[in-house]
């Protein structure tokens, strides 16, 4: 990524979203930024989930709908008073519908430094095969 080396990052406020089903806990809900890419063998999803601990991350795949719910824990201690506040903490929530080519038994998820890496391998039958074209 040579072009991004010179780019300076722009501040982006977390966007509040409405969830299709109401969450039981009150609080703000945000859409995390994601990257999704595909290779022959798998689909990979990367999501920015800063402040989320592994125990507060829920990944659910049901009827080909992938749901990511992650609760962010604020690191602020009770004795601290606000000086100024530019970002809020809350719950990250996002849903994707997947094609049925994902091998649901081999899904892997790793959460490191606030970035989730979700690997969704494709089922064998769905990996593309090279088709040789014969000259007739």
């Amino acid at each position, binding site marked *: *990524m040579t072009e*991004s*080396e*010179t*780019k*300076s*990052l*722009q*501040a*982006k*406020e977390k966007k509040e979203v409405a969830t299709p089903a109401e969450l039981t806990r009150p609080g*703000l809900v945000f859409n995390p*930024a*994601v*990257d*999704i*890419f*595909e*290779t*022959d063998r798998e689909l*990979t999803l*990367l999501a*920015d*989930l*800063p*402040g*989320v*601990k592994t125990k507060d991350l829920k990944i659910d795949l049901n009827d080909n709908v992938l749901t990511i719910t992650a609760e962010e824990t604020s*690191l*602020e*201690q009770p*004795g*601290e*008073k*606000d*000086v*100024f*506040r*530019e*970002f*809020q903490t809350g719950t990250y929530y996002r849903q994707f519908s997947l094609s049925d080519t994902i091998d649901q038994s081999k899904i892997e998820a790793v959460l490191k*430094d*606030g*970035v989730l890496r979700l690997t969704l391998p494709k089922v064998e039958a769905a990996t593309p095969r090279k088709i040789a074209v014969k000259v007739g």
Partner: protein
Amino acid sequence: MIIRRFSDWPTWDWRSPLDELERMRRELDRLTGDFTGRVFRLPSAGVFPLVNVTEDQNNFYVRAELPGVKTDALDISVTGETLTLSGERTLPEESEKASYHRREREAGSFSRVISLPARLDVDKVKAHAEDGVLTIVLPKAESAKPRQIAVKSS
């Protein structure tokens, strides 16, 4: 570089009418926030990274959400009352064969100056990252700490 000033901090500077409008807007925000149950927020400086600053009696705490940023890619410097936070966010190179469906995460460099409302003890500044959230603990200088004054009765 943009220096963020505390417009609600008591200063003897001349203040523009716009400052006054900004103050009123904030007060209104806080009032409506009371009804909706939300924490009132100050307008963002619009500089990456967005930070939350809190304080207790002895320290200021500056927190920024920097998912995937390695601590060695960060440069933190402190002088007097200002904190400079700069660094770079790089996204690891993925396989060349990968074809993207979505690309929302961004990489790039950043630099931000935050001006704090009191002098800092520059030697004792500490920083640590946890789950993609950077916390910088900035102890207040001795002279800036509140002091208890005992009143003697004669």
